[in-house]
């Protein structure tokens, strides 16, 4: 099932916006995590971890799910398909893995925010964990963006079979 051109453009726009929004939010998160890790001001450190929790729950998670959903629509609604091309498959894998890790990490963010809100020692906030997760996420999303632009060649066995079927049908 392929979408009409106008719908396809709309879906593509939604996918680009959600993916770029996710990437930008990760960069902001990275900045906050560095501030939380390096700042000598207690208020700044607490504020950074509280902001990281909010960004994680209300920006990163929605953008990641939106990116995944619009990506699925975009691939299944066009001739690219979801399992036909390696670059689409790689992007799907990146998106799913990053989303799962992000959803799991929200627990850690809530825990850190709990400490930052004043119920625990500030020392334990000096963790490189948010920055490491942000860098890893950023690398994954940059890889996905690069794959989207370059669209490296390579069809899967399933995709090749589908191509052969289409050619056979068109020759009849």
């Amino acid at each position: 099932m392929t979408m009409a051109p106008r719908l396809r453009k709309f879906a593509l726009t939604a996918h680009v916006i959600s993916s770029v929004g996710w990437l930008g939010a990760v960069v902001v998160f990275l900045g906050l995590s560095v501030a939380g890790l390096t700042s000598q001001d207690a208020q700044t450190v607490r504020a950074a971890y509280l902001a990281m929790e909010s960004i994680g729950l209300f920006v990163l998670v929605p953008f990641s799910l939106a990116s995944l959903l619009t990506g699925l629509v975009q691939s299944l609604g066009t001739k690219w398909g979801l399992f036909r091309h390696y670059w689409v498959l790689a992007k799907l894998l990146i998106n799913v893995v990053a989303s799962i890790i992000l959803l799991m990490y929200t627990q850690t963010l809530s825990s850190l925010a709990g400490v930052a809100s004043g119920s625990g020692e500030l020392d334990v906030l000096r963790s490189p964990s948010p920055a490491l997760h942000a860098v890893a996420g950023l690398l994954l999303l940059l890889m996905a963006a690069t794959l989207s632009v370059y669209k490296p060649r390579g069809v899967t066995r399933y995709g090749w079979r589908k191509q052969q079927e289409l050619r056979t049908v068109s020759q009849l």
Partner: protein
Amino acid sequence: MKLRTPRATEETPIADSPPYPDSVGDIGVEPGRGSTPGTPRWVKVLGIVGLVLVLLIAGLMLFGGGQHGPGRHTQSGDTGGQAPSRQAPSGAALDGHTPSPGGHR
């Protein structure tokens, strides 16, 4: 010296031509026409790098001697502990990272 301007002919392929020339801009035309079913090198490289990273992270989680999860950021798994120190002078509670027992590593 007279410089020769290369022409874009069959003998001088355009270096920056897109890998999927029939699908520029995702306009819905058939992509990847004529591709072979063999696994491309970039997929193998990406797969190996991903596998190594996954094994590395799993190894660190298993043998690194540390917990991985929200519990490691609190003392003994809960958030009870020292009273809020919002009024503490900057750096007072932050200088010198002294991990508490059961804290993160």
